[in-house]
C-alpha cells in the first residue's frame, strides 16, 4: 500500500468511526437514563394510584 498518505487515511477512518462510536455511546446512555426515569415515574404513580397493594407488600416484609 502507498505509504505517502497512509497516516492521513488512518486518521480519516479513525475520526469517522470515533464519531459514530461516540454517538452510539451517547445513545446508550440516553436509553439507560430514560429507562431509569420511566421506572421512577411508574413507581411514583404506583405509590399514588394503587396505594393498597403497596401497603400489602410492606406488611409482608
Amino acid at each position, binding site marked *: 500500500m502507498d505509504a505517502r498518505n497512509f497516516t492521513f487515511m488512518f486518521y480519516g477512518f479513525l*475520526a469517522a468511526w470515533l*464519531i459514530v462510536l461516540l*454517538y452510539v455511546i451517547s*445513545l446508550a446512555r440516553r436509553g439507560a437514563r430514560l429507562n431509569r426515569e420511566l421506572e421512577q415515574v411508574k413507581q411514583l404513580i404506583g405509590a399514588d394510584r394503587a396505594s393498597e397493594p403497596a401497603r400489602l407488600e410492606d406488611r409482608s416484609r
Partner: protein
Amino acid sequence: MRDKFVVALAVAAGVLLAFNLYRIFLVLPDEALQGAIYRIIFFHVPAAITGMIGYFAALLLSLAYLSFGNFRYDSLAASVVEVSVVFSVVNIVTGSIWARVIWGIWWTWDYRLTSALVCVLIFSGYLMLRRAIDEPTQRARLSAALCVFGCIDVVIVWKSIEWFRTQHPGPVLSIRTGGGRIDPAMEQMLYLNFAAILMIAIALVLIRTRQEATAREIDSLRRIANAA
C-alpha cells in the same frame, strides 16, 4: 420483534462492514494519483448520501406530522435528523482530512462544502430547539415547521452556490455521469459500503425512535402523576 429486527440489522451491517473493510484495505489497489487516502471516499460519499436521504426523509416526515398529527412521524423525523447530523459530521470530517492531503487545506467555501455545513448547522439548531421545548405536541409542531424552513433553505443554498464556485470533484457514480469516471470495482465497493452505512443508520434511527416514544410515555406519566 422489533428488537430482534434491530439486532439482526446491526449484525448484518457489521458483517457487511467487516467484509467491506477487508476488501477496501487488502484487495483494492491504490488509486493512481491519490495513493492510499482515496479510500476515505468509501466512507465520505456514503455518509453524505445517508445524510441527504435523512434530511429529505425528515422533510417528508415533518410534512406528514403537520398534516396528520401522528407522533410516530415526529419521533421518526427527530431520530432521522439526529442520525443524519452524525453522518454529515462524519462526511465533513473525512472530507476535510482528504482535502488537507489533496488540496493542502482543511476547508474551502466550495458549494458542496458550504451546503453540507449549512445542513449541519440548521439541523443542529433543530435538535437544540427540540431540547428547549418540554411539551411534546408543541415541540412536534414547532420543530416540524423549522424542518420545513431548513430543508427549503438548504435547497436555496445548494442552488445559489452551485451557480458559482466549485473546487470539489464532480460526480463519479455512473447513475449521474453515465459511467466512465470511476473503476467499476471501486464503484461496486462504494455501493456496498453505502449499503452497510445505511443499515447502521437505520438501526440507529430505530433505536432512537424507541427512545422518543419512551420519553413521551415518561412525559405523559408525569402529567398523570401531577394531575392526581
